């Protein structure tokens, strides 16, 4: 066992925590935090697992860089959506039935 593997295993735990958070928490920003934590966990597995045997591997490192950018893009978009949603409806969760009517014109 190398320290890389340790980080990979820590990554699985982070995944578990993040998944739990995404499913259980209802506040949208908290879901977003959970998503980012889960993402970090996945990235740790992605880099840690292959490096367990052969030392630094630039390929997964590059993949993680790409993944981080995708994650920040998604996070930033989600924040914009959440803020606008809150602005229009006063809600910060998707659980409650909104006061506005869903759907198009009646």
């Amino acid at each position, binding site marked *: 066992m190398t320290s890389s593997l340790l*980080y990979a295993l820590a990554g699985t735990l982070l995944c578990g*925590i993040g998944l739990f958070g995404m499913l259980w928490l209802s506040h949208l920003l908290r879901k977003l935090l959970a998503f980012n*934590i889960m993402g*970090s966990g996945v990235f*740790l597995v992605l880099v840690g697992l292959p490096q367990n045997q052969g030392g*630094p591997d630039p390929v997964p490192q590059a993949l993680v860089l790409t993944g*981080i*950018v995708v994650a920040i893009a998604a996070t930033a978009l989600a*924040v914009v959506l959440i803020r606008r949603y809150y602005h229009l409806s006063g809600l910060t969760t998707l659980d409650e039935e909104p006061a506005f009517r869903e759907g198009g014109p009646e």
Partner: protein
Amino acid sequence: MTEWLLDGLLVAALLATAVAALLSRDLFRAVVVFIAFGLLMAVAWVRLEAPDIALAEAAIGGGLTGVLLLDAVSHLGSKWPREGRQRGGKQ
């Protein structure tokens, strides 16, 4: 041995901050803890011999995401301050 200790501590800190960020009652504090989590991740990347990711994580995970979320937290709750409609809004 010290390396193992360092790694172990780092992992424990990562897990602790992750849990704390999700379970914190106060959303503002949750985001602050999350920023700490991002910085710890940057350290973890250094330990994994991935300096590129460490730099990106420090800049993005610690910096940008944090600011973005903090800004969002301070806005959610600035309007429509309805009691009971949202949990863990601003402070």
